């Protein structure tokens, strides 16, 4: 396929988790990611949104092969990466980095900040010694920390500061793509805003492309150009940020939007029209959202809706989108 400016293309990505053990009654796998497709252009930010268990984190990790996908295709700069051997994949890693959710768990507590942020430079033989220290200082300043912080340990920093360290580490190798998995969820509201601003500034300065994973629609809308909504391993809607919020087409997206608490007391919501809660194991047939959908009909129980273009690059997977 002729190369355009897509940095990354994902096609029908699947990640199934198979339960082991003689005594498991249910041999069906957990379909964490069940056939999702999307592309991100260079410089673009795609938001990946959904509630817990929808598969968004698994999807993010699978794309970078932090978890090995079960099937599907992932192309980075036009090159298929799922077929690469370990050595070839290793050479590619500086170009695609990950920012983790938990600032308390994602930094090695026994390493100084300089070692954490500089590890990539060292491992990929880009810089050592004085040159590495110099680059680490630069990176720390870029994320709003002090060069002296290089000599301290993670536990000496607050959650927001630790997240900055994680970001410094992620940009240290000048990646093209960064997958950010709930990078601000564990932080206080005022710090969230600071880190979001930082991520946006770095994006402009360094020409980064983001896959921004979060359950918080407000944040996702703020930073993303386009947004994909996931539900139980499937992608059910994808559109430009503005368009998704103005015209949410899938019933689940509509419910998700209505559920966001508004800051205007006068605009208190009407009742949410959801029924039940999701069943732990999806049925094999029909639309996965059907048990909770206020518009559910016969066809929804038997036939799985496909993701179709409703115009202006707005894709929805629903039988009855009007």
């Amino acid at each position, binding site marked *: 396929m002729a190369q355009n400016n897509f940095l990354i293309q994902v096609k029908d990505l699947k990640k199934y988790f198979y339960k082991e053990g003689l005594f498991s009654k249910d041999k069906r796998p957990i379909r964490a990611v069940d056939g999702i497709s999307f592309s991100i252009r260079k410089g673009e930010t795609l938001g990946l949104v959904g509630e817990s268990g929808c598969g968004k984190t698994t999807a993010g990790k699978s794309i970078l092969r932090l978890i090995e996908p079960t099937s599907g295709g992932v192309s980075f700069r036009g090159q298929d990466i799922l077929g690469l051997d370990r050595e070839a994949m290793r050479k590619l890693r500086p170009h695609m980095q990950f920012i983790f959710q938990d600032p308390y768990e994602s930094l090695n507590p026994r390493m100084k900040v300089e070692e954490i942020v500089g590890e990539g430079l060292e491992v990929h033989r880009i810089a050592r010694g004085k040159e590495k220290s110099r680059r680490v200082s630069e990176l720390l300043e870029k994320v709003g920390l002090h060069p002296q912080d290089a000599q301290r340990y993670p536990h000496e920093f607050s959650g927001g500061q630790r997240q900055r360290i994680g970001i410094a580490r992620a940009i240290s190798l000048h990646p093209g793509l960064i997958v950010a998995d709930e990078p601000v969820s564990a932080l206080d509201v005022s710090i969230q805003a*600071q880190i979001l601003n930082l991520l946006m500034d770095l994006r402009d300065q360094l020409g980064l492309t983001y896959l921004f994973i979060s359950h918080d*629609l407000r944040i996702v809308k703020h930073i993303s150009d386009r947004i994909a909504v996931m539900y139980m391993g499937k992608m059910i809607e994808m559109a430009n940020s503005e368009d998704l919020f103005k015209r949410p087409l899938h019933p689940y997206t509509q419910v998700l939007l209505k559920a966001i*608490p508004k800051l205007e007391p006068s605009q208190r919501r009407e009742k949410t029209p959801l029924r039940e809660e999701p069943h732990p194991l999806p049925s094999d047939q029909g639309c996965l959202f059907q048990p909770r959908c206020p518009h559910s009909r016969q066809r929804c129980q038997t036939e799985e809706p496909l993701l179709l273009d409703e115009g202006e690059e707005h894709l929805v997977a629903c039988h009855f989108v009007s």
Partner: protein
Amino acid sequence: MKIENSKNRPLLEVRDLSIHFFTEEGVIQAVQNVSFEIYPGEILGLVGESGCGKSVTGLSLLRLIPIPPGRIVNGDITFDGRSLLNLEEKEMERVRGNDISMIFQEPMTSLNPVFTIGDQIMEAIILHQGLDKKAARERAIEMLDRVRIPSPDKTIDSYPHQLSGGMRQRAMIAMALSCQPKLLIADEPTTALDVTIQAQVLELLKEIQREMGMSVMLITHDLGVIAEIADRVAVMYAGRIFEYGPIEAIFGKMRNPYTRGLMTSIPQLTEKKDRLNAIPGQVPDPMDLRVGCKFHPRCYLMIEECKKEEPPLFQVNGDHFSRCIRWKECC
């Protein structure tokens, strides 16, 4: 700053409450000179970021602060006319679960995993209302139905791990309400839940609260949750109340730079994608609080005077108060 309301006496009155923790590394002023009221049938929100003292305040109402290292160094807590701080432990036990009840953020850690939901709800009912097992079971099923748990007569025999997060939180609410308390303290009840489930649980809380005429103290860091269901709100920072009043007043026109900072930190759906107005800096180290207003190092309205003395709560209007010497220029 007592709110005089001739029609209603407050159900709960907290006056000048100060709670400190005495640790090896130093003294933490977790809560300092906090005063507020909760009236019958209303929802008071207690909002603030981590370390502001909101959870400690909630726990202190039930005298659940570990002493030592904690100590209530000052203040009064009056509930239904009685001073809670003067009660014997045995008397306090009768208040807990019965007159004042509490629900927590993580239902998995606050429900006992080795007992069924039914056992846990019935325990409170038998203990506080003296019903026999059969009657208690009926009442428990009633409560589960009230919180809209499907098939309550079967779910009553489930263990916590068999239920989803939202269901567990409903079970916890059922447990907390089983003895029809006058006041429910809800500490971040929906923070660990997905947004659609959060919306359902908040709706449920509001409905039940109205039906039962119960008061609720809703502790959260999420201003949106407050806007959804609270009647009045107290904004806390570094152990102090910074703004206090009806939500229409505060969300309509806030009069404290910290409250403003909290609001502008949250991206709004209607906004364009500019940089957010983040509050610079971070929450102060509770062991190293500076002199003067505790927010001054991060405040866009700061002047020299702010560094000298901690401001009192100024009356903005009726029952709206703000701890800021420049409240008139805010916000």
